[in-house]
């Protein structure tokens, strides 16, 4: 029973590393969107590719992406309608290192990691 604790500590570190990697990939994508004025299709495709190569257990269907794809512009006054918003989620599949010990199934032993927010466009208003 005491073995659970070191195993769980290791699992927590693995999960945290996964979330950090996820945050970094999303960060790069949002900064690209800032300079493009929106999330372009190529940016979204690259985001999916980066996530799937960083996390081999992910398929395209596991990745939830809801981002601004219409052009947004830099304005003289703050206007939330000109913000480029993003909501990106991936599953973290293993919360507990020994789920069977607590009677949990694989589907119960996971949660969704989510990055959400907005960036302001740097593209000047035409």
């Amino acid at each position: 029973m005491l073995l659970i604790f070191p195993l769980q500590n290791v699992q927590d570190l693995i999960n945290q590393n996964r979330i950090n990697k996820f945050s970094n990939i999303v960060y790069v994508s949002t900064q690209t969107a800032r300079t493009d004025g929106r999330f372009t299709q190529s940016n979204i495709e690259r985001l999916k590719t980066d996530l799937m190569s960083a996390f081999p257990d992910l398929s395209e269907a596991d990745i939830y992406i809801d981002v601004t794809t219409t052009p947004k512009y830099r304005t003289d006054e703050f206007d939330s309608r000109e913000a480029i918003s993003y909501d990106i989620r991936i599953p973290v599949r293993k919360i507990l290192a020994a789920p069977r010990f607590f009677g949990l199934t694989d589907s119960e032993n996971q949660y969704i990691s989510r990055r959400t927010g907005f960036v302001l466009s740097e593209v000047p208003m035409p």
Partner: protein
Amino acid sequence: MKPFIVGMAILILSLFLYAFNSDLILNRHANADLRTVCEEASVAGTMFIYEDQYGNGNVIFNQDESKKAIEAEIKSMLRLNDDFTPFPASYWQDQVTYKAYFYDDSNTAYPYLFVDPDTGFTHLVKAPTVVITVNAGEARYSLQFLKNGADNIRSAAHTWEER
């Protein structure tokens, strides 16, 4: 009896260590996120300048608009209500406060060494810059004796650059 008592003692100690380690990992991540929030907020703060002054060769921040953007960015990323109290889904539990420092052509002789009075964060201001310091309050620690720790405060600066 002795093995049972020792076993229970080790179990309780392991629980304490696990609780601390788990909370520490969460806090470390939330603290790193807080730095990202400061970076994004400082970027948002540099986005608004007075166009008429820019036409005269001066970069002067429109602080009213900048503050609107900074506050919106902080509230969005930290999941806060309009009064800066956290939503239940947020990691943070205290009311969040922030400070914005604007250095531009109207009030700064470059170079200027900025030293944050709250964090000790230093930044050599060589061009118009916005510095944001966010105080997100105490971390979530489940062990009673670790509560009332130091506040989580992070700073970041962003310099206005001509594109």
